[in-house]
């Protein structure tokens, strides 16, 4: 009911800068600008959330149990490793209404699921193909070069781990 256009504290139900991050650089031509506006419009009515930082072992049922607290879930798409089709730590949750998606950003994003702090972001909508990781080795890009050991997400980053192994081998061979 409030008449405020700007709130006195930040809102947690704003989309992140993820979409439009690449396009924002400079509007080279009109077409590009229109595309950008279209994407913004899509987020204004979006009913889908991208959910990140899940453990590889978190199941659909667990996600359902938590996210249904914000409204009935229309569709849940697990993020999969492109090559071996196993969960790789993200998913898309689609609600029936935009409000449910916003509420989820406010109330569930940044809380724990399966004892990990999860991330939620408004998403313009799932499209076939987006369920797969885009990293070189099949998982998410962020799991390629991760230098920390994360048991819930396959240990070290894969590319990082490979390099580490190689260096170790070479070091051993050199001796």
């Amino acid at each position, binding site marked *: 009911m*409030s008449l405020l256009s700007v709130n*006195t504290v930040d809102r947690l139900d704003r989309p992140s800068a993820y979409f439009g991050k690449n396009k924002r650089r400079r509007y080279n031509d009109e077409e590009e600008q229109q595309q950008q506006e279209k994407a913004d419009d899509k987020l204004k009515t979006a009913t889908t959330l991208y959910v990140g930082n899940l453990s590889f072992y978190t199941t659909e049922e667990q996600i359902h*149990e938590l996210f249904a607290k914000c409204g009935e879930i229309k569709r849940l798409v697990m993020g999969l490793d492109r090559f071996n089709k196993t969960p790789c730590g993200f998913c898309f949750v689609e609600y029936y209404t935009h409000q449910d998606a916003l509420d989820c950003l406010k109330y569930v994003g940044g809380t724990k699921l399966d004892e990990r702090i999860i991330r939620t972001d408004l998403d313009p909508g799932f499209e076939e193909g987006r369920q797969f990781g885009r990293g070189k080795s099949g998982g998410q890009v962020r799991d390629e070069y991760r230098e*920390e050991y994360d048991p819930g997400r396959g240990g070290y980053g894969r590319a990082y781990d490979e390099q580490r192994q190689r260096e170790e081998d070479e070091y051993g061979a050199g001796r």
Partner: protein
Amino acid sequence: MSEYDRRNQGRGDRGGRKRRYRDDDDFDRRPQRRRYEEPLFAVIRRQLLTIAESAARRVEDDIQGIAKSVADNYDDEEIRRDFVNISLDLVHEQPMKIPFIAGTVLVAHSLKPELGSEIITKAAGALQKYIDTGAWREVKLLIRFLGLLQPLYEGEGIFPLLEELFARAVDLQTASSEDLLGLELVKVIQFTLPYVMLSPASGFEAQASGLLEKTDIIATTPHALVDLVNTFSPEENQSAAGQSVISLMQSQLQREASNGWELKCLPRPWKDLRDPETDEFKSFDSVTKVAFPEITVPSPVPNGPHPLFPEVYLSVYADQEVDTVPSTDDISSSLIRDALVDTINLLDFNRVATAKFLIDIDCYFTPYTFVKRATPFDRMRELAGEIQPWKPEDVAVDAVFSQLFQLPAAEHKLVYYHSVLTECCKIAPAAIAPSLGRAIRFLYNNLDTMDLELSQRFLDWFAHHLSNFGFTWKWSEWTDDLDLPAIHPKIAFINGALDKEIRLSFAQRIKGTLPEPYPKLITSGKEKDTPEFKFASDMAPYAKEGQEIMQLIRKKATDEEIQPVITAIEDQAKSQGVEDPKIPSTDAFVTSICFVGSKSLSHVLSCIDRSKDRLLTIGAESKHARTQIITSVMEYWVDQPGIAINIIDKLLNYTILSPLSVLEWAFVESVAAGTILSKPHVFEMISATVGKVTNRMRQIVAARTQPGLYEPQLTAIDETLSREREDMQTLFKYIEDSIVSIAAGSNDEQMERGDGSGDLPEDVIIRQWGRRWLRVFRRKVAVEEAFISDALANATPLGTEAPAGATDGDLDIADADVDAGVQ
């Protein structure tokens, strides 16, 4: 977590590294620009927004500083506009700061009367808008702010407006004894009075007492719905049942009036203000007076979009040996609660900010109202008897629970209140966790008499909260209760909580968090990812056919391939004299679907989707087969009822099951002499099923009442509405009839139990479950019926034709429109 921990480390050594996380933007790695002087408007803006937030600064200094800067720069339009707008924004969103904002305005007005006039005019404009739209919380907050400026007005100031609001309340109450809007107006008056009396204005005691005398009758006459929304049904627990907020406030106000309006918890930041030049205490009497703005209160007053219900005062710290929260005799209990509740509900868009305000509660009330933060409960015990300050964490947590347990419905989704408590715990774990512990103990100890819907909310919150904090709880303190009968509410709670914990995690993990003897409550069945397929054992009847069907479903075989096996089962059953051969064939089919789809929810959904037609036919052909679908699902997932409920939910969406069939399954097939009522997951399933029906009903009502609807659509949609309304009533009637007999102990199975006397200790518990179920669903009936008749009262009457010239082609109110929710 790693993503979060790492943010501040290892910067600068990887030049040209890509921006990888959304938060990276917060850290600018470029060399900083030369420092520049912060412009004055930005300083004022910041000071205003954070007014009273810091315990390290004297708020009086800030008030004088802001007022002086704004008055000195009156000609700077940006500063003036910011001051007016931000002050009012804070009144809207951060109610605990209203006295401080009012203090600033009082001082600003004494320096530059135009400032006071400007802000009063703007506030009055907003107030008028809220009165016209029936936004009564916003009305309350703006009137509170205007009331605190009472010394600035000519004559009686705000009182004529309060009198007028009261007159409307009287009109409404005279018109109907069921009226709730009049009660809301009385509440607005009640929660304005203390602030008017708090203001530096003097000589209004007579007006205040006069109003109080008038509100007395309305505030103290109990409304018929109060009992229905009470945390504790007065029948079950008279001593714990709370009083209505307005009747409580009425007696507290009267006590306060006779004590000369001491109002000891509310801050008076204007009291110790000295004039910087003369060093004398500031007086607001001599300043230029302004006329109280013209406000029109329409008659009758409207109500906004939110339906009204009586509110009941709940405290989870009510019966402690030492008082840690203000008692209900003390007006502080109502005043602090009111400010906190509004803060919580207004700031749902930033739970972290909400939690911060709750933790900082001691900044916003008179100093020494509370003990030091994080004072342990044992220390409170030692302090008892001396001065009686309260424990800030308990007061804050109490307010959140009062909203989580609001009946018939909380303002926001319940998970918001979960998240506020989680954030509070994150900000101040050592202070909040023990408070939560005592709240949990209070609720647990009163489980048997608490409203059943609320004990379910408690269960839900408890498991969700623990899931955010490593599932640690002192289970050992409830060990003795494990000897209670299996259907006891405490056992139901413990089992229900463990089940919900497992749903958010997994059985082995939860088992590892439990002390002896709790692990045995998590059976080996719960630890299996995939429950066994009963037809895998050759001993099972129809084992061969069951396995065959399972293989066919797995192979995605066509219906024609499956049919012969189904027929084989039915023939066999018939030859064995089974009354309804569809029952074993349905069991084999549905159990196979569950088994093949046991890998995940999407697996079972695609299995159901493929078998949709057959399932729809089964459901339509035989009532028994329809309940068998539910039985098979519930039996296959007996150890993980959360999954079973989920599948039932989807089957309802597909209309393979009807809501009534779910009720029949519970109250006929599985009633088990009423013991089924003790199962939390059954209550969850029935509530969800009824929720689907009432949601659909509300969508139809919304379609029927949308403006600009004309014939012939009006009649079409009205027919749908009547039909669905009847269906809903049938459903509620079925629940009522089924549970009434259990609550009375006259259910057939109950009568056959034991010696038939109905006096077994278990029988007493079962009848209590029955009464608690009944209360929940009777309330739902009352709420839904009230909603429908309220909405229809303002709907376009049937027979209304489109005005000439209007196009009627753009209305999308086809029947299909209200079929949302079907996947």
